[in-house]
């Protein structure tokens, strides 16, 4: 090649900004408008559950007025139920219980599911066989019946209800975790970590698990929603802690009056519907944000 005396300098290639994957994920999330609406609603509900009882200190168990006062009358925004209790106070206090049970049950099922799925997917062989048969056993149990048995046997306290819901709903997490582990453990960077001397525990929880998290997170978000529904189902059937109010319980206790005072059932029903919908929308947004296939390279 001929020598060029005056080869012009190219402008220096710019270094891409160091952006944390989380920042990118947020950008993808924000592009899903429904998810953002869901997130705002969810934040409002959470704020209401945390601070509501302080701002609106009416005791949900107090008889404050005549029973069956329709909403908006006599100064009670949402009216009163069949015992004359303030529905607004019940909804606000019930939000706490519903959210706590939803979150806690999801945590329990994630803990069980991720552990079992990770072990099965990582070790393969007989460990996987055994754990997956165990998982299938839980999958084929009729979930509502099984959780009713647990609550009936061990008492209807909040922790027991949470545990019961967690125990019957971890199987989906286990299956997702396992399949992600099976996929990721074959990728070369896991092999590279092994060649670098990483031990099994590190491979499992520091290398594979973080990369397996996206679908697990999405599933967990949806699980909070279904746990809230599950709790509503249980308390509708009366399997609930009598010392706390929950949305399902409100519906359950007012169900005889559904024709005469439908608002006593529809209002807590709406609360459940809006909360679960918001969680689902957020879960959908998380899916967009964390699913790398949608992300441009």
């Amino acid at each position, binding site marked *: 090649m001929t020598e060029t005396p005056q080869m012009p300098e190219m402008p220096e290639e710019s*270094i*891409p900004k*160091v952006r944390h*994957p989380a920042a990118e994920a947020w950008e993808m999330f924000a592009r899903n408008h429904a998810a953002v609406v869901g997130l705002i609603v969810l934040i409002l509900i959470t704020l209401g559950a945390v601070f509501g009882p302080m701002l609106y200190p009416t005791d949900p168990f107090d008889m404050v007025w005549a029973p069956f006062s329709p909403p908006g009358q006599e100064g009670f925004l949402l009216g009163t139920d069949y015992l004359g209790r303030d529905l607004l106070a019940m909804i606000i206090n019930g939000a706490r219980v519903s959210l706590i049970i939803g979150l806690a049950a999801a945590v329990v099922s994630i803990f069980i599911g991720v552990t079992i799925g990770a072990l099965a997917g990582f070790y393969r062989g007989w460990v996987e066989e055994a754990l997956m048969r165990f998982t299938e056993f839980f999958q084929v149990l009729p979930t509502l019946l099984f959780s009713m048995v647990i609550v009936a046997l061990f008492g209807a306290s909040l922790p027991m209800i949470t545990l019961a819901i967690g125990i019957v709903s971890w199987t989906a997490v286990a299956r997702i975790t396992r399949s992600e582990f099976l996929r990721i453990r074959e*990728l*070369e*960077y896991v*092999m*590279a*970590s*092994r*060649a*670098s*001397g*990483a*031990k099994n525990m*590190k491979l499992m929880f520091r*290398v594979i698990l*973080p*990369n397996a998290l996206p679908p697990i997170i999405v599933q967990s978000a949806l699980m909070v929603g279904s746990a809230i529904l599950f709790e509503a189902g249980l308390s509708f059937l009366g399997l609930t802690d009598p010392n706390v109010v929950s949305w399902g319980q409100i519906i359950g206790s007012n169900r005889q009056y559904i024709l005469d005072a439908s608002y006593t059932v529809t209002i807590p029903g709406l609360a459940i519907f809006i909360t679960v919908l918001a969680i689902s929308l957020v879960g959908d947004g998380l899916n967009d944000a964390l699913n*790398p296939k949608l992300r441009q*390279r």
Partner: protein
Amino acid sequence: MADETKTPLLKVENLGVRFAVKRGGGFGHKSWLHAVDDVSFTVNRGETLAIVGESGSGKTTAALAVARLVDAWTGHVDLSGHDILAMEGEELRQVRTKVQFIFQDPYSSLNPRQRAEDIVREPLASLTDKSKDEQREIADRLFAAVGLRPEQKRLFPHQFSGGQRQRIGIARALATQPELIICDEPVSALDVAVQAQILNLLKDLQEEFGLTYLFISHDLGVVQHMCDSIAVMYMGKIVEHADRLSLFDNPLHPYTAALLSAVPSVDKARRAHTKRILIPGDPPDPVNLPKGCRFANRCPVAQDICRAEEPELIDRGEGHRIACHLVDDSRQSVL
């Protein structure tokens, strides 16, 4: 390189790797796929041995077994006097500092959630007791050695191009100052123009650090450029093993000859007088290998003996080893 007295660094003897395969559903009986079957070779210090072969030849499996990334079923792997296959626990982790691996796919061989710098110092963190500052210092030097800029240390893998990612992979392999680096198709996932960058880098690093390479590839052009000796594998076996000049000038095993003739070339002279040896058909089922030579069903010159007896890999002089019944010590081409 060539004038130094040759001392073997890696000696592989009768290596075998097999996988259990289930045929016919869950209750079918188990049979074995011998991915690597009775493979022996030596790599001299400071040199490059290539293992070439097509998909299913077992070349990558053999390399993984040497690095203890898959379990060998039988055989010995001796790295400067230590039998790698017999090691366990702490001892094995120490050996890992001596043998490092460069992977094929720069897109899947880097953990997407780690920053470049952390990827490079991972072997140091896992295998040595160097302090974090020392690890970072070494990572800095390696970044420079593989041609990356220091500002790029904090980036995540997806912010690099394929060639740059492969450079990160190379830096990681160099971190513990290994004696042997196994390169598994290090450029086959890269664009052609980028391949040269990486191949030149590998050559430079070899000179600078006195590295020994075990180079796995299917690309005979790359192999011819990079290696001192070449072992050709077919269906789990080495069929021919010779130094670079002998193998390319006088390929003796019919499979090697066919393989060489199949490579398209821009060299007009070569195209004009290379007779293309087309080998018809496909390799046999690796689980139910036929009796005799594994190449016999596609070999243009196969005789009755080839279908009856499996040929051994025999040194036919000057270290040119061939596993073919038809080749004798005169080293005449049989085609």
